[in-house]
Protein backbone atom coordinates (compact mmCIF):
# COMPACT_ATOMS: atom_id res chain seq x y z
CA UNK A 1 0.00 0.00 0.00
CA UNK A 2 1.40 3.42 -0.92
CA UNK A 3 2.20 5.85 1.87
CA UNK A 4 -0.22 8.43 0.51
CA UNK A 5 -3.05 5.89 0.64
CA UNK A 6 -2.14 5.02 4.23
CA UNK A 7 -2.30 8.71 5.17
CA UNK A 8 -5.74 9.02 3.56
CA UNK A 9 -6.87 5.91 5.45
CA UNK A 10 -5.60 7.39 8.72
CA UNK A 11 -7.37 10.69 7.99
CA UNK A 12 -10.72 9.15 7.07
CA UNK A 13 -10.59 6.56 9.84
CA UNK A 14 -9.74 9.16 12.47
CA UNK A 15 -12.44 11.54 11.19
CA UNK A 16 -15.06 8.77 11.26
CA UNK A 17 -13.98 7.80 14.77
CA UNK A 18 -14.17 11.41 15.98
CA UNK A 19 -17.71 11.67 14.62
CA UNK A 20 -18.42 8.41 16.41
CA UNK A 21 -17.38 9.91 19.77
CA UNK A 22 -19.57 12.97 19.17
CA UNK A 23 -22.69 11.02 18.19
CA UNK A 24 -22.12 8.58 21.05
CA UNK A 25 -22.23 11.42 23.58
CA UNK A 26 -25.50 12.74 22.13
CA UNK A 27 -27.08 9.28 21.93
CA UNK A 28 -26.42 7.41 25.17
CA UNK A 29 -28.75 8.16 28.06
CA UNK A 30 -27.20 10.48 30.65
CA UNK A 31 -25.87 8.50 33.59
CA UNK A 32 -24.30 5.70 31.57
CA UNK A 33 -21.03 7.56 31.06
CA UNK A 34 -21.61 10.14 33.77
CA UNK A 35 -19.60 8.33 36.44
CA UNK A 36 -16.85 10.02 38.44
CA UNK A 37 -14.06 7.72 37.24
CA UNK A 38 -15.07 8.09 33.58
CA UNK A 39 -14.95 11.87 33.90
CA UNK A 40 -11.62 11.73 35.69
CA UNK A 41 -9.99 9.47 33.11
CA UNK A 42 -11.49 11.56 30.31
CA UNK A 43 -9.96 14.70 31.82
CA UNK A 44 -6.54 13.06 32.29
CA UNK A 45 -6.28 11.29 28.93
CA UNK A 46 -5.82 14.48 26.87
CA UNK A 47 -3.26 15.72 29.40
CA UNK A 48 -1.13 12.59 28.90
CA UNK A 49 -1.49 12.64 25.11
CA UNK A 50 -0.81 16.37 24.69
CA UNK A 51 2.19 16.32 27.05
CA UNK A 52 3.69 13.32 25.23
CA UNK A 53 3.06 14.88 21.80
CA UNK A 54 4.67 18.17 22.86
CA UNK A 55 7.76 16.43 24.23
CA UNK A 56 8.27 13.99 21.34
CA UNK A 57 7.76 16.66 18.69
CA UNK A 58 10.20 19.04 20.37
CA UNK A 59 12.94 16.73 21.58
CA UNK A 60 13.28 13.93 19.03
CA UNK A 61 14.61 13.69 15.49
CA UNK A 62 12.59 12.21 12.65
CA UNK A 63 13.83 8.73 13.59
CA UNK A 64 12.93 9.09 17.27
CA UNK A 65 16.41 9.80 18.68
CA UNK A 66 16.56 12.39 21.48
CA UNK A 67 18.00 15.76 20.55
CA UNK A 68 18.03 19.38 21.68
CA UNK A 69 17.86 22.07 19.02
CA UNK A 70 16.28 25.42 18.13
CA UNK A 71 12.80 23.92 18.57
CA UNK A 72 13.23 23.83 22.36
CA UNK A 73 13.90 27.57 22.44
CA UNK A 74 10.82 28.10 20.29
CA UNK A 75 8.73 26.03 22.68
CA UNK A 76 10.10 28.02 25.62
CA UNK A 77 8.96 31.20 23.86
CA UNK A 78 5.50 29.65 23.47
CA UNK A 79 5.54 28.84 27.20
CA UNK A 80 6.32 32.46 28.06
CA UNK A 81 3.55 33.67 25.75
CA UNK A 82 1.14 31.27 27.47
CA UNK A 83 2.13 32.56 30.90
CA UNK A 84 1.35 36.06 29.62
CA UNK A 85 -2.06 34.71 28.50
CA UNK A 86 -1.40 35.56 24.87
CA UNK A 87 -3.96 34.38 22.29
CA UNK A 88 -3.41 31.02 20.55
CA UNK A 89 -1.99 32.40 17.31
CA UNK A 90 0.45 34.69 19.16
CA UNK A 91 1.72 31.67 21.14
CA UNK A 92 2.33 29.68 17.96
CA UNK A 93 3.78 32.72 16.17
CA UNK A 94 6.27 33.35 18.99
CA UNK A 95 7.50 29.75 18.83
CA UNK A 96 7.89 29.83 15.05
CA UNK A 97 9.62 33.24 15.08
CA UNK A 98 12.17 32.33 17.77
CA UNK A 99 13.00 29.00 16.09
CA UNK A 100 13.35 30.65 12.68
CA UNK A 101 15.56 33.46 14.05
CA UNK A 102 17.87 30.98 15.82
CA UNK A 103 18.25 28.96 12.63
CA UNK A 104 18.96 32.15 10.72
CA UNK A 105 21.70 32.83 13.26
CA UNK A 106 23.21 29.42 12.56
CA UNK A 107 21.83 27.38 15.49
CA UNK A 108 20.52 24.07 14.10
Amino acid at each position, binding site marked *: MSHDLLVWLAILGMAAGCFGWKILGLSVPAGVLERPWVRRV*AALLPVALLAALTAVQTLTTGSGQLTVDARLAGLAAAGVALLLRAPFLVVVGAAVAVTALLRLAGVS
Partner: protein
Amino acid sequence: MLRDSFGVGIAVGVSGVAFGGTAVAGGLSVAQACVLSLLAFTGASQFALVAAVAAGGNPLPGAVGALLLGSRNALYGLRVGPLLGLSRVRQRLAAAQFVIDETTAVTLAQPDHRSARLGFSATATTLFVLWNATTLAGAVGATALGDPSRYGLDVAGPACFLALLVPQLRGARERYWVAGVAVLVALATSPYLPSGVPILLATLAVPLVLVAGRRTARGTRVAADESREEGR
Protein backbone atom coordinates in the same frame (compact mmCIF):
# COMPACT_ATOMS: atom_id res chain seq x y z
CA MET B 1 -24.77 35.89 24.01
CA LEU B 2 -24.33 36.23 20.24
CA ARG B 3 -21.30 38.39 20.94
CA ASP B 4 -19.83 35.53 22.99
CA SER B 5 -20.58 33.06 20.22
CA PHE B 6 -19.02 35.14 17.47
CA GLY B 7 -16.11 36.13 19.74
CA VAL B 8 -15.19 32.53 20.50
CA GLY B 9 -15.91 31.46 16.94
CA ILE B 10 -13.67 34.12 15.43
CA ALA B 11 -10.84 33.85 17.97
CA VAL B 12 -10.55 30.08 17.61
CA GLY B 13 -11.68 29.90 14.00
CA VAL B 14 -8.72 31.88 12.70
CA SER B 15 -6.35 29.39 14.38
CA GLY B 16 -7.09 27.18 11.41
CA VAL B 17 -4.21 29.06 9.77
CA ALA B 18 -1.83 27.43 12.24
CA PHE B 19 -3.36 24.04 11.50
CA GLY B 20 -3.20 24.43 7.73
CA GLY B 21 0.42 25.60 7.94
CA THR B 22 1.46 22.83 10.33
CA ALA B 23 -0.30 20.19 8.24
CA VAL B 24 1.55 21.12 5.06
CA ALA B 25 4.84 21.50 6.96
CA GLY B 26 4.25 17.97 8.30
CA GLY B 27 3.88 16.51 4.83
CA LEU B 28 0.12 16.54 4.23
CA SER B 29 -1.30 17.85 0.97
CA VAL B 30 -3.59 20.88 0.92
CA ALA B 31 -6.52 18.55 0.17
CA GLN B 32 -5.69 16.29 3.11
CA ALA B 33 -5.48 19.27 5.48
CA CYS B 34 -8.87 20.56 4.29
CA VAL B 35 -10.58 17.16 4.50
CA LEU B 36 -9.33 16.81 8.08
CA SER B 37 -10.78 20.19 9.06
CA LEU B 38 -14.09 19.42 7.34
CA LEU B 39 -14.59 15.86 8.54
CA ALA B 40 -12.68 15.57 11.83
CA PHE B 41 -13.37 19.17 12.98
CA THR B 42 -11.74 18.85 16.39
CA GLY B 43 -8.45 20.73 16.68
CA ALA B 44 -6.33 18.65 19.04
CA SER B 45 -6.99 15.38 17.19
CA GLN B 46 -6.22 17.03 13.86
CA PHE B 47 -2.85 18.30 15.10
CA ALA B 48 -2.11 14.86 16.56
CA LEU B 49 -2.78 13.17 13.25
CA VAL B 50 -0.48 15.64 11.49
CA ALA B 51 2.20 14.80 14.06
CA ALA B 52 1.78 11.11 13.22
CA VAL B 53 2.22 11.77 9.50
CA ALA B 54 5.11 14.20 10.06
CA ALA B 55 7.02 11.56 12.02
CA GLY B 56 7.12 9.37 8.91
CA GLY B 57 6.53 5.64 8.88
CA ASN B 58 3.15 4.10 9.52
CA PRO B 59 0.66 6.81 10.58
CA LEU B 60 -1.90 4.37 12.02
CA PRO B 61 -0.62 4.17 15.67
CA GLY B 62 -0.60 7.97 15.69
CA ALA B 63 -4.13 8.00 14.31
CA VAL B 64 -5.24 5.90 17.27
CA GLY B 65 -3.70 8.48 19.62
CA ALA B 66 -5.50 11.25 17.73
CA LEU B 67 -8.75 9.33 18.06
CA LEU B 68 -8.26 8.94 21.82
CA LEU B 69 -7.83 12.72 22.07
CA GLY B 70 -11.30 13.07 20.55
CA SER B 71 -12.96 11.01 23.28
CA ARG B 72 -13.69 14.08 25.39
CA ASN B 73 -16.24 15.19 22.79
CA ALA B 74 -18.42 12.24 23.86
CA LEU B 75 -18.58 13.66 27.39
CA TYR B 76 -19.42 17.10 25.99
CA GLY B 77 -22.32 15.54 24.09
CA LEU B 78 -23.72 14.12 27.32
CA ARG B 79 -23.93 17.59 28.83
CA VAL B 80 -24.90 19.57 25.74
CA GLY B 81 -27.45 17.08 24.38
CA PRO B 82 -30.22 17.67 26.94
CA LEU B 83 -29.88 21.49 26.58
CA LEU B 84 -30.27 21.31 22.82
CA GLY B 85 -33.36 19.08 22.98
CA LEU B 86 -32.43 16.82 20.09
CA SER B 87 -35.24 14.29 20.12
CA ARG B 88 -34.88 12.89 16.60
CA VAL B 89 -31.98 10.85 15.29
CA ARG B 90 -31.74 13.18 12.30
CA GLN B 91 -31.32 16.20 14.59
CA ARG B 92 -28.60 14.43 16.55
CA LEU B 93 -26.74 13.48 13.36
CA ALA B 94 -26.88 17.10 12.19
CA ALA B 95 -25.65 18.55 15.49
CA ALA B 96 -23.02 15.94 16.40
CA GLN B 97 -20.19 17.21 14.19
CA PHE B 98 -20.26 20.54 16.05
CA VAL B 99 -20.03 19.22 19.62
CA ILE B 100 -16.47 20.33 20.48
CA ASP B 101 -14.65 22.33 23.20
CA GLU B 102 -15.76 25.81 22.15
CA THR B 103 -19.41 25.15 21.31
CA THR B 104 -19.79 23.23 24.58
CA ALA B 105 -18.32 26.09 26.59
CA VAL B 106 -20.69 28.64 25.05
CA THR B 107 -23.76 26.37 25.27
CA LEU B 108 -23.23 25.47 28.93
CA ALA B 109 -22.79 29.16 29.82
CA GLN B 110 -26.35 30.03 28.67
CA PRO B 111 -29.15 30.62 31.21
CA ASP B 112 -31.97 28.80 29.34
CA HIS B 113 -32.64 26.23 26.60
CA ARG B 114 -33.54 28.77 23.94
CA SER B 115 -30.32 30.76 24.22
CA ALA B 116 -28.35 27.52 24.64
CA ARG B 117 -29.64 26.38 21.25
CA LEU B 118 -28.94 29.77 19.68
CA GLY B 119 -25.46 29.99 21.23
CA PHE B 120 -24.62 26.51 20.01
CA SER B 121 -25.68 27.21 16.42
CA ALA B 122 -24.03 30.63 16.25
CA THR B 123 -20.71 29.36 17.65
CA ALA B 124 -20.81 26.23 15.51
CA THR B 125 -21.49 28.16 12.29
CA THR B 126 -18.85 30.85 12.86
CA LEU B 127 -16.25 28.35 13.94
CA PHE B 128 -16.90 25.81 11.18
CA VAL B 129 -16.80 28.39 8.39
CA LEU B 130 -13.69 30.18 9.69
CA TRP B 131 -11.76 27.06 10.74
CA ASN B 132 -12.16 25.54 7.29
CA ALA B 133 -11.47 28.75 5.39
CA THR B 134 -8.32 29.52 7.40
CA THR B 135 -7.12 25.89 7.15
CA LEU B 136 -7.17 26.30 3.37
CA ALA B 137 -5.42 29.68 3.62
CA GLY B 138 -2.72 28.33 5.95
CA ALA B 139 -2.13 25.23 3.85
CA VAL B 140 -1.87 27.17 0.60
CA GLY B 141 0.35 29.76 2.28
CA ALA B 142 2.73 27.17 3.71
CA THR B 143 2.92 25.39 0.35
CA ALA B 144 4.00 28.67 -1.24
CA LEU B 145 6.70 29.18 1.43
CA GLY B 146 8.58 25.99 0.53
CA ASP B 147 10.92 24.32 3.06
CA PRO B 148 9.01 24.55 6.36
CA SER B 149 11.93 23.99 8.74
CA ARG B 150 13.70 27.06 7.38
CA TYR B 151 10.91 29.19 8.79
CA GLY B 152 10.58 27.29 12.05
CA LEU B 153 7.15 25.98 11.04
CA ASP B 154 8.09 22.54 12.40
CA VAL B 155 7.76 23.98 15.91
CA ALA B 156 4.17 25.13 15.28
CA GLY B 157 2.86 21.63 16.04
CA PRO B 158 4.42 21.28 19.51
CA ALA B 159 3.55 24.92 20.29
CA CYS B 160 -0.10 24.16 19.50
CA PHE B 161 -0.01 21.08 21.73
CA LEU B 162 1.47 23.12 24.55
CA ALA B 163 -1.20 25.80 24.09
CA LEU B 164 -3.90 23.12 24.27
CA LEU B 165 -2.26 21.42 27.25
CA VAL B 166 -1.65 24.34 29.61
CA PRO B 167 -5.33 25.25 30.25
CA GLN B 168 -6.05 21.56 30.99
CA LEU B 169 -3.40 21.42 33.70
CA ARG B 170 -5.41 23.71 35.92
CA GLY B 171 -7.56 22.15 38.58
CA ALA B 172 -5.81 19.20 40.16
CA ARG B 173 -2.24 18.33 41.02
CA GLU B 174 -2.61 14.83 39.59
CA ARG B 175 -2.70 16.45 36.15
CA TYR B 176 0.90 17.64 36.53
CA TRP B 177 1.90 14.13 37.57
CA VAL B 178 0.15 12.63 34.56
CA ALA B 179 1.85 15.14 32.22
CA GLY B 180 5.27 14.47 33.76
CA VAL B 181 4.99 10.68 33.64
CA ALA B 182 3.61 10.83 30.08
CA VAL B 183 6.60 12.92 28.92
CA LEU B 184 9.08 10.51 30.54
CA VAL B 185 7.43 7.40 29.07
CA ALA B 186 7.20 8.93 25.59
CA LEU B 187 10.80 10.22 25.51
CA ALA B 188 12.26 7.04 27.02
CA THR B 189 10.56 4.74 24.50
CA SER B 190 10.76 6.97 21.43
CA PRO B 191 14.24 5.80 20.23
CA TYR B 192 13.15 2.15 20.26
CA LEU B 193 9.56 2.10 19.02
CA PRO B 194 7.88 3.13 15.75
CA SER B 195 6.54 6.70 15.79
CA GLY B 196 3.11 7.10 17.36
CA VAL B 197 3.52 4.11 19.67
CA PRO B 198 5.35 6.11 22.41
CA ILE B 199 2.40 8.53 22.43
CA LEU B 200 -0.02 5.66 23.00
CA LEU B 201 2.20 4.20 25.73
CA ALA B 202 2.21 7.59 27.44
CA THR B 203 -1.51 7.17 28.19
CA LEU B 204 -0.40 4.54 30.75
CA ALA B 205 0.45 7.58 32.87
CA VAL B 206 -3.28 7.93 33.61
CA PRO B 207 -3.84 4.54 35.37
CA LEU B 208 -0.37 4.76 36.95
CA VAL B 209 -1.04 8.13 38.56
CA LEU B 210 -4.61 7.20 39.56
CA VAL B 211 -3.45 3.98 41.27
CA ALA B 212 -0.51 5.72 42.95
CA GLY B 213 -2.86 8.50 44.08
CA ARG B 214 -5.27 5.99 45.62
CA ARG B 215 -2.39 4.26 47.44
CA THR B 216 -1.18 7.55 48.90
CA ALA B 217 -4.71 8.57 49.87
CA ARG B 218 -5.24 5.22 51.60
CA GLY B 219 -1.82 5.49 53.28
CA THR B 220 -2.66 8.93 54.66
CA ARG B 221 -6.04 7.72 55.87
CA VAL B 222 -4.47 4.72 57.65
CA ALA B 223 -1.83 6.98 59.18
CA ALA B 224 -4.53 9.41 60.31
CA ASP B 225 -6.56 6.55 61.84
CA GLU B 226 -3.50 5.22 63.61
CA SER B 227 -2.59 8.58 65.12
CA ARG B 228 -6.19 8.95 66.27
CA GLU B 229 -5.98 5.50 67.90
CA GLU B 230 -2.77 6.51 69.63
CA GLY B 231 -4.27 9.77 70.84
CA ARG B 232 -7.12 7.97 72.55
